[in-house]
């Protein structure tokens, strides 16, 4: 849709609104001007003539004085222009009723029942009423545009989130499959159970994580499976401490948010460490808020440099937090020489 352009249908509707306004004005004025009931023929002529002097003022005001001069924010110029236009048509109204109508309508006899200031009052009422109509109409247009913009923005955000999720899955699976590959080379007997766990995770990633929100309990369950899976492939030097609630309630969370931090800890802590390593994971829920904390010591890989995939997961999750939980999250990352700490406070 191109804004500011009218389709044939809306153009017809636009013209219809003006026709309706003119007809409504005509019948209101006819009711006011008629001295007999039902109105006589002369009353129709009288009303038509009166309206013929009002309409130019109304439309000149709406489409020239207000539209052009109103934008310049010069109140004095606007008021002077409005007064000039109004004065001109008051003069035309008086001349029309007192003189010109004699030749225009020789078969009718009528006089103007209104003095110049009363005519001015009619003009004023019409100008005010039509300006309010115009402003209210503009308000509806602005409102509609705002809704369109919000809808467009929402669609953009959803597309971006979809793209971010698509980046998470391969990122995780590549790492996990690499681990399974290592286990198969070692002919590790825990391999079948590990594959089952991976299967469960894949189901979650591929199907259940398509939802905007998933139960927090499900996310925790997946997190535990993931940690178990990582524990299997880790050596004994890695000390993993988890403290997570088993039954957090009915709260929901965006899928795959927390796992990214855990994955990051395993990758940059456990994998890169040459000595004893630790990962501490803690999740506390309180009403609508969760506090999630992941701490790990840093391995040699992190001290020597950042690999090209290491920052991608964390950047993704930061962007997702901004999109899904704007003003509702606090993410604290402490990157010291020895440890890496992530503290996420999230308002669900």
């Amino acid at each position, binding site marked *: 849709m191109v804004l500011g352009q009218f389709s044939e249908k809306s153009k017809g509707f636009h013209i219809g609104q003006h026709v309706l306004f003119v007809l409504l004005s005509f019948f209101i004025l006819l009711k006011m001007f008629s*001295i007999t009931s039902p109105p*006589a023929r002369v009353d129709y002529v*009288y009303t038509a003539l009166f309206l013929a002097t009002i309409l130019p003022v109304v439309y000149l005001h709406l489409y020239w004085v207000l539209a052009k001069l109103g934008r310049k924010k010069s109140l004095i110029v606007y008021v002077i222009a409005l007064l000039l236009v109004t004065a001109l048509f008051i003069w035309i109204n008086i001349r029309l009723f007192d003189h010109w109508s*004699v030749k225009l309508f020789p078969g009718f006899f*009528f006089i*103007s029942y209104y003095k110049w200031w009363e005519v001015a009052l009619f003009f004023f009422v019409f100008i005010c009423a039509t300006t309010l109509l115009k402003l209210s109409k503009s308000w509806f247009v602005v409102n509609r545009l705002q809704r369109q913009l919000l809808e467009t923005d929402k669609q953009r955000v959803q597309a971006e989130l979809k793209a971010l999720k698509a980046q998470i899955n391969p990122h995780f699976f590549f790492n996990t499959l690499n681990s399974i590959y290592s286990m198969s080379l070692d002919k590790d007997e825990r391999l079948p159970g590990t594959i089952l766990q991976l299967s469960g995770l894949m189901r979650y990633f591929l199907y259940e994580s398509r939802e905007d929100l998933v139960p927090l309990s499900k996310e925790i369950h997946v997190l535990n499976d993931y940690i178990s899976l990582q524990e299997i492939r880790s050596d004994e030097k890695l000390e993993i401490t988890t403290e997570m609630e088993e039954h957090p309630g009915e709260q929901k969370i965006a899928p795959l948010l927390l796992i990214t931090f855990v994955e990051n800890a395993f990758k940059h802590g456990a994998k890169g460490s040459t000595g004893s390593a630790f990962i501490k994971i803690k999740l506390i829920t309180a009403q609508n808020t969760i506090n999630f904390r992941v701490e790990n010591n840093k391995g040699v890989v992190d001290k020597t440099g950042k690999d090209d995939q290491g920052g991608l997961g964390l950047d993704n999750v930061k962007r997702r937090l901004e999109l899904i939980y704007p003003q509702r999250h606090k993410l604290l990352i402490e990157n010291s020489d020895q440890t890496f700490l992530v503290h996420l406070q999230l308002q669900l």
Partner: protein
Amino acid sequence: MNKKFFPITAVVVMIFLTSCLTSLHNLVTYTTVVSDDRITGNWQHDDLIMKIESVPTSSFLKKISSAKDSGAEKKSVYDSKEDSLLYSRSYIIQFSKNNYQYYMVCCLTHICDDLYADIEPLTAEPLNKPTESNTDDLFNGGSYTTTHSIAKLFVRGNELELHILNGDFIKEQLKNGTASVRYEKDDLFATTLITASSEELRQFLSKYGNDERLYSSKNTITLKKI
């Protein structure tokens, strides 16, 4: 009331046998009244002799003033300050017909350089001693409202022309819905009374005063000075 209403509104019709327009309001007000002494004097139309005098010097005013002094109850032409201003520049028309002495007040005004007269019946007194069929004052007593007839005046030498507004034409326009003038219609007596204000009447004549359709030869009366 209606018995009184009819002769009061129809004085001009009765006298000149014209179809004049009757208005509830005076065309002339104390702010628009003018004097033109060319209309004063004795005038004749067929067998009717008419006397026109300025109100302040009229025999009618002297008569009611002396009647007031003697304590008799008579209707005064001066009801208010505005009336005083209006009538002090107006004229009394008097004539005799059918054993009655008629008095009418005539106020003049200029509209677009033309001279217009507003004629209002004032009183009608019997010429002879009142009898059962000939009451004291035809217009006095009872509740009635006098109405006004409007005419355009031309003074040409010894002639005074009254172009009385054609009531039939105006009524026809009102009936056809081609004229917008405030009016009341009495279906019982088939009379139409224009109720437009003095200002509206003036505005109407200012716009249509030179339209020949408003007048007719039947409604034109020529008085000769004698």
